[in-house]
């Protein structure tokens, strides 16, 4: 068994290439879009666009890497054994969280304390006083509460995730565990996984998306919104895990991972793509049915009305095609889920699809009809991908890739899906 893994040169080239592309895009934004001359109206649209793109990418990629730790904790709590052979991959991905968390935190703080009312309308004190709807929510939507919640949320994910990773890495140091030690370790691991899960539910599945994304449209609300965010990022997290598993397998690592594990990852991606559609449709159907102006506004901003097509109509349906039609038709067959190349293709496609999904959450409420999907938007995405690749690569080279003393490793080796 290889204890250390050397990153191939192409991986490093891609990492630095993406980061450089991203930095060029960021520099372009800083110079050409005048991000610090913010305000409402068309003359300040460059600043709005700059910060909206940063918000979209940072929240999307942060929640995506956090979903990797969710997978570990969910399978740990279910006493699942199948994922142990590839467990180091989600651990590596979740190790990016402190980096992306800090970046997201800085961006959110600039938006809230820098008075960016073009992104978050409620930041403006005069609006918060005069608008009765926003005034009613001001106990919740105010900079202090927002900051405290962001600190607790990102800090909690980072600390609990760190504990889970540390526990997993610690049993690698010594020889195999005895029966009693293994039993105690599994119990401790399950307790910590449950703590993470409770915290995850209270943040990702309820409060975080309300504050970070739904408050872009402070007049509008949806009780499905947080679940919708969770479903979206869990699919992307699974896709990221799948890509890394296949990458490492191609490099001759992860010797116990077989098509059986790949098929299980495929099943997860398939199932949660359908779950995403279910949540998406539940949100749409209720708003379509009750047809109340303050609710339909959200969709009119995106698809427009029967007589007047909105600027996001094409992306809106592309979103459904990529994230629902493609997985249900392509991933339904067992042979697809066992095909390494097709799984890479589907993972990349879905990562892009859910990136578009987040684009559709952030852009209509901020830049509105001036939205662009230009090299700048993709450049910022490249920056975040580069940071994830750099950070995951560091974890993969430092630690053994198979948790050889995990009590459930044998279960994973003989796993049949």
């Amino acid at each position, binding site marked *: 068994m290889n204890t250390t893994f050397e990153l191939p040169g192409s991986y490093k080239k891609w990492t630095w290439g993406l980061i450089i592309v991203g930095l060029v895009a960021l520099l372009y934004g800083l110079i050409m879009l005048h991000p610090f001359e913010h305000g409402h109206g068309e003359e300040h649209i460059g600043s709005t666009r700059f910060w909206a793109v940063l918000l979209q990418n940072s929240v999307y990629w942060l929640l995506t890497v956090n979903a990797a730790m969710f997978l570990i904790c969910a399978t740990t709590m279910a006493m699942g054994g199948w994922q142990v052979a590839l467990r180091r991959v989600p651990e590596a991905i979740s190790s990016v969280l402190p980096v992306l968390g800090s970046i997201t935190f800085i961006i959110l703080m600039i938006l809230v304390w820098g008075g960016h009312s073009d992104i978050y309308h409620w930041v403006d004190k005069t609006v918060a006083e005069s608008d009765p709807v926003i005034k009613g929510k001001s106990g919740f939507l105010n900079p202090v509460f927002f900051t405290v919640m962001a600190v607790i949320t990102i800090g909690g994910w980072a600390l609990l995730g760190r504990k889970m990773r540390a526990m997993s890495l610690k049993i690698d140091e010594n020889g195999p565990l005895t029966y009693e030690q293994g039993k105690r370790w599994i119990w401790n691991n399950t307790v910590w996984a449950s703590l993470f899960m409770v915290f995850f539910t209270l943040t990702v599945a309820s409060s975080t998306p309300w504050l970070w994304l739904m408050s872009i449209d402070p007049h509008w609300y949806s009780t499905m919104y947080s679940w919708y965010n969770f479903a979206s990022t869990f699919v992307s997290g699974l896709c990221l895990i799948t890509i890394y598993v296949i990458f490492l397998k191609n490099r001759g690592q992860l010797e116990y991972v077989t098509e059986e594990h790949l098929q299980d990852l495929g099943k997860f991606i398939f199932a949660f793509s359908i779950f995403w559609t279910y949540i998406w*449709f539940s949100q*749409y*159907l209720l708003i*379509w*049915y009750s*047809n109340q102006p303050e609710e339909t506004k959200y969709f009119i901003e995106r698809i427009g009305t029967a007589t007047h097509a909105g600027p996001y109509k094409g992306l809106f349906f592309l979103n459904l095609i990529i994230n629902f039609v493609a997985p249900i038709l392509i991933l*339904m067959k*067992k042979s697809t889920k066992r095909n390494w190349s097709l799984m890479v293709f589907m993972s990349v496609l879905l990562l892009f699809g859910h990136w578009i999904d987040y684009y559709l959450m952030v852009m209509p409420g901020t830049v509105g009809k001036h939205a662009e999907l230009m090299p700048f938007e993709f450049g910022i995405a490249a920056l975040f991908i580069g940071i994830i690749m750099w950070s995951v690569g560091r974890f993969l080279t430092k630690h053994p890739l198979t948790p050889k003393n995990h009590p459930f490793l044998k279960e994973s080796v003989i796993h*049949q899906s």
Partner: protein
Amino acid sequence: MAGGIKKFVVGAFDDEKVLFPAVKNVRKSGYKIHDVYTPFPVHGLDHAMGLRETSIHTAGFIYGITGTSVALGFMSWIFTKDWPLNIGGKPHFALPAWIPITFELTVLFSAVGMVITFCWLCQMMPFVKKHHFHPRATDDLFVMAIECTDKTDDAEVQRFLKSEGAIEINVQHAESGWWFGFYNRQEKLYRDENEN
């Protein structure tokens, strides 16, 4: 319908670990395994017996697509052609409102269709009867039935099964297919075989 009366050599095994090599060796020796009856699903036995992968999921997909089209077709015919109603000012072709029903009918068609197909493939329907080779196949024994042709020397097959570790071996003349009706007919055949 009926497969006709055939001669079978039946061996009963009391252990999975003995059964697997036995199945393998019987196939290797060129005997035709009619079927293996087990008290519970045995993982990997289908591979050992050389059965092909089931295509019931393809059938399920076709049933599902049928359900989707039936639901969408029927509802759009009713609400746009047959009996258009103004419901809350919504358009007559109100696709979002039909999605839940379409989903339910897709699930219903594929589920019921697959259950019926499964029963059909396993020849398990109400009133369908098959010969039981050994009553303890539903309790604690793994029962292998080997089909004999005119040229098969059943004494040799019995010796072979004995060497493979079968704990109970006999020869039965039985209906190889299925029939509608009662089990009286089978009891008669069973008696015939015991008289030999």
